[in-house]
């Protein structure tokens, strides 16, 4: 397998797009190509993610993006894996480049749902679940993660104040991110006063419905040895799956797909959790960050809830988590999220993260979950050795 890098990355501001998902996808794709310093014609394949394009009466986005970029002859495919769509696209891109099929591959994720009301958007988000066996029985997406939170609280005594500390931390980070949907700090009392959406989860436990787009250029070191920015060396690119329905899994206090993907990724990278300097993990709800840190082996099971309270996962803590603000504050434009996590790593590695810069940037991990963990991606990046 060839050494594979991320050499270009770009994102829109998350929140409310004033243009279509198609326009945003094309715009950030061109920005990512420009940041990689390559001619668009060097792209060999484009993987596009746009789960809810149908909400804009649009499918088959790949040829539209490629045509907008002036490369209509480049093949494309749409990659859908719910909230982990564009990290699944990144995995496909990695396989294309590492195997030698292509020298450079474009990964794009975009979503626009802000033109829908909350009820309709809630229904769209629930499409990642099992319609006849979860959604039709009343589950919303917050409801499914609330089920996990309820089970986690029962087994480990996880407190609302601990979940609140995750929200407070990620809002503080988002306040330092000019591309974040929410750039406003919140206090624990604000968190505790927010209304219950799906008990025990309150409004400030939940990520927002965001619009946004993010893009990456993945390339072979041997084909592009001198990119203009510090590249991310892809040390591991892993996808995993598990039983789709939460209730059919033996344990509801974590996501087995996260655990499996994490174990495989650390083996592939020949690294241990202690070797990772910072992480962007899938915090669609505060409990999701807690479970991710436990499932990935950064904390023993039942002990990650304390991390945000104790400052361990703050930007200046021992192990910064979600310096971008995470899905929680940066926002969660479903198909853009996985790529956006990598954009954050790219910015951090290139000292372009401003006030949210983490102290150490030798290695980083991104973790992106599809729905309640029926699918999952874990990527590990490091700086180049030379």
């Amino acid at each position: 397998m060839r050494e594979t890098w991320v050499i270009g990355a770009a994102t829109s501001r998350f929140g409310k797009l004033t243009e279509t998902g198609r326009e945003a996808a094309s715009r950030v794709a061109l920005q990512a190509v420009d940041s990689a310093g390559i001619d668009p014609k060097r792209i060999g394949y484009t993987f596009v993610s746009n789960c809810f394009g149908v909400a804009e009466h649009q499918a088959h986005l790949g040829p539209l993006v490629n045509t907008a970029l002036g490369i209509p002859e480049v093949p494309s495919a749409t990659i859908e894996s719910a909230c982990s769509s564009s990290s699944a696209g990144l995995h496909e891109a990695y396989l294309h480049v590492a195997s030698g099929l292509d020298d450079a591959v474009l990964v794009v994720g975009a979503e626009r749902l802000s033109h829908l009301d909350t009820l309709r958007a809630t229904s769209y988000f629930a499409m990642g679940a099992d319609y006849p066996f979860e959604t039709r029985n009343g589950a919303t997406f917050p409801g499914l993660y609330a089920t996990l939170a309820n089970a986690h609280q029962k087994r480990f005594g996880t407190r609302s104040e601990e979940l609140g500390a995750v929200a407070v931390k990620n809002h503080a980070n988002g306040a330092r991110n000019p591309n974040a949907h929410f750039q406003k700090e919140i206090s624990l009392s604000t968190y505790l006063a927010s209304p219950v959406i799906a008990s025990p989860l309150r409004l400030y436990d939940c990520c927002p419905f965001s619009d946004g787009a993010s893009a990456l250029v993945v390339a072979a070191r041997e084909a592009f040895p001198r990119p203009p920015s510090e590249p991310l060396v892809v040390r591991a690119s892993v996808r995993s799956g598990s039983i789709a329905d939460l209730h059919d899994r033996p344990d509801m206090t974590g996501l087995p797909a996260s655990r499996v993907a994490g174990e495989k990724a650390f083996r592939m990278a020949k690294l241990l959790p202690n070797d990772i300097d910072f992480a962007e993990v899938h915090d669609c709800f505060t409990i999701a960050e807690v479970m991710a840190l436990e499932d990935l082996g950064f904390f023993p099971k039942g002990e990650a809830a304390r991390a945000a309270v104790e400052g361990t996962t703050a930007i200046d803590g021992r192990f910064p988590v979600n310096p971008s603000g995470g899905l929680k504050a940066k926002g969660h434009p479903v198909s853009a999220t996985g790529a956006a996590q990598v954009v954050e790593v790219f910015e951090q590695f290139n000292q372009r993260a401003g006030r949210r810069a983490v102290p150490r940037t030798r290695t980083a991990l991104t973790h992106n979950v599809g729905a309640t963990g029926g699918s999952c991606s874990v990527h590990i990046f490091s700086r180049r050795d030379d």
Partner: protein
Amino acid sequence: MGHSIREFEEGYEVGRRLLAFRSECGFVTATWGLVCPRCGVRDLAELPLSGEGRIAAFTVQTVPSEEFVNDAPYAYVTVDLPEGGRITGWMAGVRTEEELSIGDSVHFAPGYRRGVQFERGSGASRRD
């Protein structure tokens, strides 16, 4: 498992019964599938369910999806079945999380409107 998803839905909404299957390895599921996700066998035997169960986890949802817009708040419950495995459903009229606990007894209340609906059971709570 030769059944269709429609048979599950008609089971609880028309036939007033819950459908579940057990594979040779003992895995029980009330979710449609073709092969046991644990042991891989295709010979899944239909398992009669009593309709009783205990809450394994729950949430009280105040923001529903569109199909439940007139029912909120309500509880979405994950129920441990005495026959093995779990099933999900919803409970009308539950307004706060203090009204339920993990381990509470519930029973299937068929034919109301949609999905699998549960009501409070007569069995004692097991709040272990």
